[in-house]
């Protein structure tokens, strides 16, 4: 597998003129910012592509970008039924970390984190990646013990991870309430200092622009409604705008994975559930670490605009309506206010939901399928944003070589037959 190379932010850009920089900013200021080149074209679909990627979320766009930049495959289209990044990519709370317990997970998430660390440079697009640290809280003796055990496993994989006691947590996060009389007291926590957040839209836009520059067609508002399959091999897709032929098809549609698998004639071990988030009115900087709690299902960070971004646990029932139940939000906010009493007077601005693709072992599927040349990348559930660069990178490798590499091999669909599950429920099932 080739390592992505950094060529000073010019990857995929045809000319110096298109590069975003302080100079291009100044140049465009003269014309009142009215002459910026379009970041990507919206071409009419061709009749045939070497590879079609279904789903223009971060994962799909990243896949197309790496197909073009790493594997020289440029006759590629990304097709989305809505607008680019309008799925979970544009709805998530953007927590990025790689502190998963099992070796297989460490492999994919750490691969991804390493790519994040160079992504803005590589794409010449500010993804606003901020390694502000992700602190996960423990609220019981048992949870703390389990956390210590997990931290050792994570460290053995070379991933940074430190246990903090309540006093250290209070020092790091002055607004947190560490009163031991809380219903769920802060007993300790563990931090990954290289973890953090990024701007979700920027990730989609940055990959789209770079892929477009390498010749990838990005086709929006075009739903894939079926597959053309000949002798057990995919030959193209049916879309709302007519059929398109393809040598290979990669499907990266998150909550709709089961629907697309159904169209191709097989089933997945995936349930689609609503996951909700909300943001408050913007306030002055008050929290410069991401705080997560798996036991009270509360996640919070402060955006660069000053909004507090809250995430909750997934709703319990299957749904394709991009909204969930209010009691989930109520429960999460109750926990948030107990841990951060200062939040009690915050007004919430917006809440929304996305449909997440949850797998029984809370690990993704990056795999070949029963149909030749048709590949699926799904099952990221509540926590796939952090994996966007890594997932796209290894999925492109799988599609280009028709062979899993050492990172993707464990995430095969076949693990649900041979029983080699990657059970990350403790680490990822409810957390992001």
């Amino acid at each position, binding site marked *: 597998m080739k390592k992505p190379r950094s060529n000073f932010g010019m990857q995929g850009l045809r000319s110096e003129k298109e590069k975003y920089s302080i100079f291009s900013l100044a140049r465009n200021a003269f014309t009142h910012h009215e002459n910026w080149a379009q970041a990507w074209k919206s071409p009419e679909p061709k009749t045939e592509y070497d590879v079609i990627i279904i789903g223009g979320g971060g994962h799909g766009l990243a896949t197309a970008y790496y197909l073009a930049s790493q594997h020289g495959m440029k006759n590629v289209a990304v097709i989305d039924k809505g607008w680019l990044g309008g799925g979970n990519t544009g709805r998530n709370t953007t927590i990025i970390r790689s502190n998963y317990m099992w070796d297989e997970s460490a492999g994919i998430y750490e691969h991804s984190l390493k790519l994040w660390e160079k992504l803005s440079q590589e794409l010449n697009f500010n993804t606003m990646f901020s390694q502000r640290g992700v602190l996960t809280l423990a609220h019981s003796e048992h949870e703390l013990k389990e956390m210590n055990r997990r931290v050792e496993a994570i460290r053995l994989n070379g991933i940074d991870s430190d246990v903090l006691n309540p006093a250290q947590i209070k020092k790091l996060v002055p607004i947190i309430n560490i009163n031991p009389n809380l219903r769920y007291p802060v007993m300790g926590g563990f931090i990954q200092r290289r973890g953090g957040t990024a701007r979700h839209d920027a990730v989609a836009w940055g990959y789209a622009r770079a892929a477009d520059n390498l010749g990838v067609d990005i086709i929006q508002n075009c739903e894939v409604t079926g597959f053309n399959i000949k002798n057990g091999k995919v030959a193209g897709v049916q879309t709302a705008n007519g059929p398109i032929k393809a040598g290979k098809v990669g499907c990266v549609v998150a909550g*709709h994975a*089961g*629907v697309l698998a159904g169209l191709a004639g097989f*089933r*997945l*071990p*995936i*349930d*689609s559930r609503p996951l909700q988030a909300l943001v408050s009115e913007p306030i002055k900087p008050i929290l410069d670490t991401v705080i997560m709690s798996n036991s009270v299902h509360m996640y919070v960070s402060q955006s660069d605009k000053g909004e507090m971004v809250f995430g909750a646990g997934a709703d*319990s*029932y*299957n*749904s*394709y*309506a991009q909204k969930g*139940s*209010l*009691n989930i939000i109520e429960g999460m906010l109750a926990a948030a206010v107990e841990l951060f009493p200062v939040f009690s007077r915050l007004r919430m601005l917006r809440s929304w939901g996305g449909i997440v693709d949850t797998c*029984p072992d809370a690990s993704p599927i990056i795999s070949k399928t029963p149909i030749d040349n048709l590949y699926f990348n799904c099952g990221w559930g509540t926590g796939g944003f952090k994996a966007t660069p890594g997932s796209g990178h290894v999925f492109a490798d799988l599609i280009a070589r028709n062979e899993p590499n050492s990172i993707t091999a464990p995430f095969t669909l076949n693990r*649900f*037959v*041979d*029983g080699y599950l990657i059970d990350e429920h403790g680490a990822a099932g409810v957390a992001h």
Partner: protein
Amino acid sequence: MLYIKCPWCGYRDDAEFHYGGEAHIKRPFDADSLSDEEFSEYLFQKSNTKGLTLERWVHTSGCRRWFNVLRNTVTNEIIEVYPSNQLPSSQAGKEYYKNNWRRKSAAESLTTRQVEK
């Protein structure tokens, strides 16, 4: 929010209930005779339908009884609520039950314990 009509307690907010997933999954009686693929199909594969679906709920904070629901997963409309040991009686529910892939699965063909009437 879902507004679910418990057959015993009437309409309640879904906060009072727990979800039990897909309804009418029958445990294969003689699981040892299934291949790994067939058992995986029973254990892991999901219908996860976009549209009408048959599912189980339990009224945890109320009467604590289980029952089945026919719901549209796109609109969240609840079309039918019926006892957990019965089959749906609405036309849409009957059709969904009949056409569901599990009826033809190897696991189900091995079930000897027939609960429905």
